[in-house]
């Protein structure tokens, strides 16, 4: 606990009967970039706002450097925040906007103007000092918001879906900017988004939220390669889910599965103990893991419903004998003739697939 820079312990928030966040705990180290990833309503923004001080936890604690911040009012928490809606002060110029937190802290005029210059250079908006927010584009406004949040050197920077109001190209550019600024300043960042690509690009670690709980925290690679729950598997990266009829454990971490059409596959990795497993079992296979089965290996018989050319890859839309569909993706250059409406047999990298029980 004492090593973590920012920690949330047992945070719970209810609004009347609705439980928005249920028992969320996490800890960040100094300088880390952690993203809250999840669909809307999953509790990620609620948690963020509690850290900012705009909501009081129903239960739980939030600490920075070991000390609880719950009794400190928002304006004394010294936390920086960038919102989704740019929230620049409309009646002040860009420089005045950035200077505002420093003015409030009664810094000297010389210090203020030096720092403002530094921040404007950091977000690369030289020349815009005397413009008004309404004269700037969305992307530029967000950069000013960032500069303003960092002006007073906060220990923690919170960002609530700051890029979702921007178009794709701008979002990509700003993601690079944010990453650069993170590396340059070393500030600890807590980022909220529902875009898994964005999360993967920016973060050191990702906390996946679902229905008010964290399903898994880990690096992007960990979440992609070893998803712990079905939700995480489906949310991070592309995935296919197929029903499994029967599962028999072989040893502690392997199983033999039987698909609904009778095909048997062995050497399937097994994460959880089968004891107490309830009714349904699904296998998750990434589209990129699927390939054509060689003649001498076991394969699943499927029909090719549609083939889509995507530039550097080709996407095949397949249907199993029992009617479930899945997507297979292969690099364009390995495309063999025309496969539409053909019956093929597929196989996949066994150790890249995962079993989930519910």
């Amino acid at each position, binding site marked *: 606990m004492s090593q973590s820079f920012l920690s949330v312990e047992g945070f719970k928030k209810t609004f009347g009967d609705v439980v928005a966040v249920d028992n969320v705990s996490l800890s960040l180290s100094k300088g880390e970039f952690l993203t809250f990833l999840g669909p809307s309503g999953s509790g990620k923004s609620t948690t963020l706002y509690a850290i900012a001080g705009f909501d009081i*936890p129903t*239960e739980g*604690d939030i600490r920075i450097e070991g000390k*609880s911040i*719950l*009794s400190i009012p*928002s304006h004394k928490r010294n936390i920086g925040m960038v919102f989704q809606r740019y929230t620049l002060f409309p009646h002040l110029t860009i420089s005045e906007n950035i200077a505002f937190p420093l003015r409030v802290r009664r810094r000297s005029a010389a210090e203020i103007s030096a720092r403002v210059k530094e921040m404007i250079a950091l977000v690369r908006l030289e020349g815009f000092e005397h413009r008004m927010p309404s004269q700037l584009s969305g992307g530029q406004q967000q950069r000013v918001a960032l500069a303003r949040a960092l002006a007073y050197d906060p220990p923690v920077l919170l960002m609530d879906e700051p890029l979702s109001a921007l178009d794709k190209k701008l979002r990509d550019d700003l993601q690079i900017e944010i990453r650069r600024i993170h590396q340059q300043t070393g500030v600890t960042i807590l980022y909220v988004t529902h875009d898994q690509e964005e999360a993967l690009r920016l973060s050191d670690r990702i906390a996946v939220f679902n229905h008010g709980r964290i399903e898994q925290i880990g690096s992007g690679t960990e979440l992609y390669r070893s998803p712990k729950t079905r939700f995480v598997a489906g949310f991070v990266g592309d995935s296919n889910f197929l029903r499994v009829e029967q599962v028999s454990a072989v040893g502690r971490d392997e199983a033999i599965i039987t698909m609904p059409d009778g095909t048997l596959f062995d050497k399937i990795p097994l994460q959880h103990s089968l004891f107490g497993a309830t009714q349904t079992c699904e296998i998750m296979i990434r589209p990129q893991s699927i390939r054509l089965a060689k003649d001498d290996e076991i394969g699943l018989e499927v029909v090719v419903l549609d083939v889509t050319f995507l530039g550097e890859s080709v996407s095949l839309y397949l249907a199993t004998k029992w009617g479930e569909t899945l997507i297979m993706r292969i690099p364009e250059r390995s495309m063999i003739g025309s496969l539409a409406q053909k019956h093929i047999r597929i196989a996949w990298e066994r150790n890249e697939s995962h079993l989930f029980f519910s």
Partner: protein
Amino acid sequence: MTTTAYKNSAPFFGTRGLGMALPSLFLLVLFFVVPVIALLLRSVTEPEFGLQNYRELFLTSTYSRVLYNTFLVAGLVTSISLFLGYPVAWLLSVLPPRKSMVIFAIILLSMWTNLLARTYAWMVLLQRTGVINKFLLGYGFISEPLPLVNNLIGVCIGMVYIMLPFIILPMHATLRTIDPAILQAAALCGAGRWQAFRRVLLPLSASGALSGSLMVFVMSLGYFVTPALLGGANNMMLAGMISQLIQSLLNWGLGGAAAFILLSVTLALFAIQMRYFGGSLMGAR
């Protein structure tokens, strides 16, 4: 582990924000609600407890004539304003902004110009030796000056003058929301212009027209200045009667009763407007 957490973005001055509204609340209750209720109470307690004031108002011909006259004038003014104002609102709703700006400016200017100044203008224009009579006499339309003021005609002209902006603006707002494509669709379906108007445009704009009319009617009922200046002894309206009963005759009982009648009709009509039209609010002056 939970220490007392601080809620910082709550409105200040306590009790979940109610505190800030208290000064205004006190002012309104003390100097608005209480006096009005007191006045109404006087209507049933003076000279003695009972409804005799109301009986007197409704049954004595002098007073009941005033009531009748008030509703008559309000009705006339509302209908005339509606008919004159509808075409203007219609044109305004189809004109591009640059052309409509001037018309709007004229309407708004007339609305914000001092009421007395505007009524005074009509007093002068309509008098026997005034411009209008001189014009009509001079060109031989009439042989004797027309009595245009100190009678029903003067009051109606003056009130329509005041009320026109108040009916044009809401009607215009409603007409603006109608998609022109609907009328084009009607034409494609084969409707002639009159039919399209009667069956499509009129029903769609009815709510704005009715809402505006209701507002103008309510305002006309309670109007004081213009009827007093432009009307004669025979067309006194409710507001003038209330004023006379109280200021000149010091008859608080009757005055209070008349005020209550005016008040309740106003509230009832306003309630109808809120219920059916989600009415916008404009003042009665």
